[in-house]
Every structure is written in structure tokens, then in C-alpha cells.
């Protein structure tokens, strides 16, 4: 089974990103494929590389980058939502690309199931 993941909320402010991360991990562990992970609305902030939470908390951006590297995941930040919010290639973590909403459409068409996390 191939999942597409859509993340609609920013980091820390809402549990959505954590739920999405836990879901993605569990899906990979169960042997499923991830077609792509798309960040939209304030979700675009999840991959901001300057975030620096205290040492005793999770680093949401780093965590996504590590998962992406380990499993060769396709992480996509929406260019329209990103531009509006000051997210550009210079301020995002590695293993993430900025691309258009068309990519979300492609994920919806290619994946067997879409799973959405948000507020």
C-alpha cells in the first residue's frame, strides 16, 4: 500500500506534525510505501532549519530530515503557501524540496490512500 501524507499545521503549535510523524514511522515499519509528504498552510514551517528547541524536546525539522534521509522520502513544501510565509530554499532543512500544489495533486493520484493531519 502506498500512502500520501498531507500536513496542514505548523510545528509545536499543534500536534498534527507529531501525529503525522508517528503515523509515517508506523506505516514504514509495517512495510508500506510513502508516495510523498506535502506541507501546506502553516505546515510549511515544519521544515524551517533555524528552529532550535531546548535539548529536552524533539527537533521537529531535524526529525523529518532524518526520516527522509533514512527512507529516501519525498518531502515537499508548497511554494505558494511557503512564499506567503517567508519560506524559501535558503531557510529549509536538507531532503526537502519546494514545489507547486500540482505535486499534491500528483500524490493524490499516485498514492493508494491520502492521510491528512491538521487543525
Amino acid at each position, binding site marked *: 500500500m502506498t500512502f500520501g501524507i498531507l500536513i496542514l499545521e505548523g510545528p509545536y503549535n499543534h500536534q498534527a506534525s507529531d501525529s503525522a510523524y508517528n503515523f509515517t514511522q508506523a506505516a514504514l515499519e509495517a512495510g508500506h510505501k510513502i508516495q510523498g509528504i506535502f506541507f501546506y498552510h502553516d505546515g510549511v514551517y515544519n521544515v524551517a532549519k533555524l528552529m532550535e528547541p531546548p535539548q529536552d524536546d524533539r527537533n521537529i525539522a531535524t526529525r523529518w530530515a532524518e526520516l527522509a534521509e533514512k527512507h529516501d522520502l519525498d518531502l515537499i513544501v508548497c*511554494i*505558494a503557501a511557503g512564499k506567503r510565509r517567508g519560506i524559501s530554499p535558503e531557510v529549509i532543512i536538507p531532503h526537502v524540496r519546494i514545489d507547486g*500544489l500540482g505535486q499534491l495533486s500528483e500524490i493524490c493520484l499516485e498514492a493508494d490512500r491520502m492521510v491528512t493531519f491538521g487543525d
Partner: protein
Amino acid sequence: MASIEVNGKQLEVDEEGYLQNLEDWNMDVANFLAEQEGVEMTDNHWEVVNFLREYYEEYKIAPMIRILTKAIGKKLGADKGNTKYLYELYPGGPAKQACKIAGLPKPTGCV
């Protein structure tokens, strides 16, 4: 922020050359932007630009190419409502290039 100068006035444009403030647009600005794009404005070119501006006025978006051709066909006739005709007028992409000259934001569907 980049800018262009038309009739002695500095107008802000974004990195791709789209007008930043839509109210800065006038026919001289359109001619300037067209020249930058290597497009010589004829009546047929103006027809498309005016169509886009009216569409934007009504719906607050610049239509993507498929919708643009359909809508132009409906209003101006089938000989004009096709991609070939529009690309001949605006080789850089009818939606993208004509929108820029019309002083509109980049059409939805191009991001």
C-alpha cells in the same frame, strides 16, 4: 525589491517581473512590460490583455490556460479560443506572459 521605470515613475516588480502593486498598471506600463517580453502589442494582443483584466476584475484570479482558452472562445469566437492562436500572440505562455503585461498576479496553475 526590483523595479522598473515607466514615464519617470519607479514601479516595484517581483523577481519574475510581475507588477507588485496592481494599481500601478496603465497602458504605458503594459507597453513597457510587453517590450521587455519581446512582444509587440497589436489589437489582438490588447484583446487578450483586456479580457484578462476583466476576468480578474470579476473573479479575482487570473485563469489558467485551459480556462483562458475556453473563456476566450466563448467571448471572442472559436478562432481565438485555442491554444495555438494564443501562443502565437504570447510565445512565452499566454497565461503567464499576458498576465504579466496585463499587470495581474501570476495565474493560478503556474505555481
